[in-house]
């Protein structure tokens, strides 16, 4: 478990994860975007793979690296749940807003009279 937690404590590895969010990439394409040697990128990828964040598959001569979907799907599910909390809040907001708007219109009419 410690290895898994440590895997994302490194800013370069977090950057690799961010780059892979755009889709599978070979190590060369990642190296172009990062200011470190390809051997360094490979080492970071190996650590991410061992930690369960990244998987790889052969594509002809190349090896393509991609994010494992599972952890990120759970994150999206959580955010969707938080969205529902806000939808409920806004429903309550609307009820109270209607009450206040009606009250403020009454006051305004009262003043005109």
């Amino acid at each position, binding site marked *: 478990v410690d290895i898994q*937690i440590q895997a994302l404590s490194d800013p370069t590895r977090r950057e690799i994860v961010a780059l892979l969010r755009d889709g599978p990439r070979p190590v060369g394409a990642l190296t172009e975007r990062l200011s470190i040697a390809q051997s360094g990128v490979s080492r970071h990828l190996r650590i991410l793979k061992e930690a369960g964040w990244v998987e790889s598959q052969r594509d002809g001569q190349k090896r393509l690296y991609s994010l494992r979907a599972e952890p990120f799907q*759970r994150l999206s599910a959580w*955010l969707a749940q*938080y969205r529902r909390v806000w*939808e409920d809040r806004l429903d309550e907001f609307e*009820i109270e*807003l209607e009450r*206040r708007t009606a009250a403020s219109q009454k006051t305004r009419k009262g003043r005109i009279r």
Partner: protein
Amino acid sequence: MSDQEVIERTWQAPIDVVWDLWTSAEGIASWFGPRGFTVVVDEIDLTVGGAFQYTMTSSEAGAQPRVVMSTITELEPPRKLVYESPMGGSDVMTTSAEFTETADGVKLVLVISATVDGMVKGAAMGWESSLERFGEQIA
């Protein structure tokens, strides 16, 4: 890394009434609590850098009150309020509300975004518990 949710609503109401309900302590208390919770606004200092603090208590017996502290980062009355809530570690949740007057009424664009580096790290320890903790802190 960050992720975000966007919600839009439009209401036929004067913008000053909307703004007051969104930003005043007694206004917030009337709508902010998720069902089954009571919310008391301890402080809302409507300035950039000002504090927004509330205490939330579940109606369940024996529930401990939870204090949530945020900091106002952008303020343009009566059109914009942005605040940041710490979520433990270096992660923050940002809640941005922008109001514009349209032909249909006052339109709210609410953007909730969260940085998730710490959450992603916490994931290795078990997503469910880390997400639950995260939810408890900012719900």
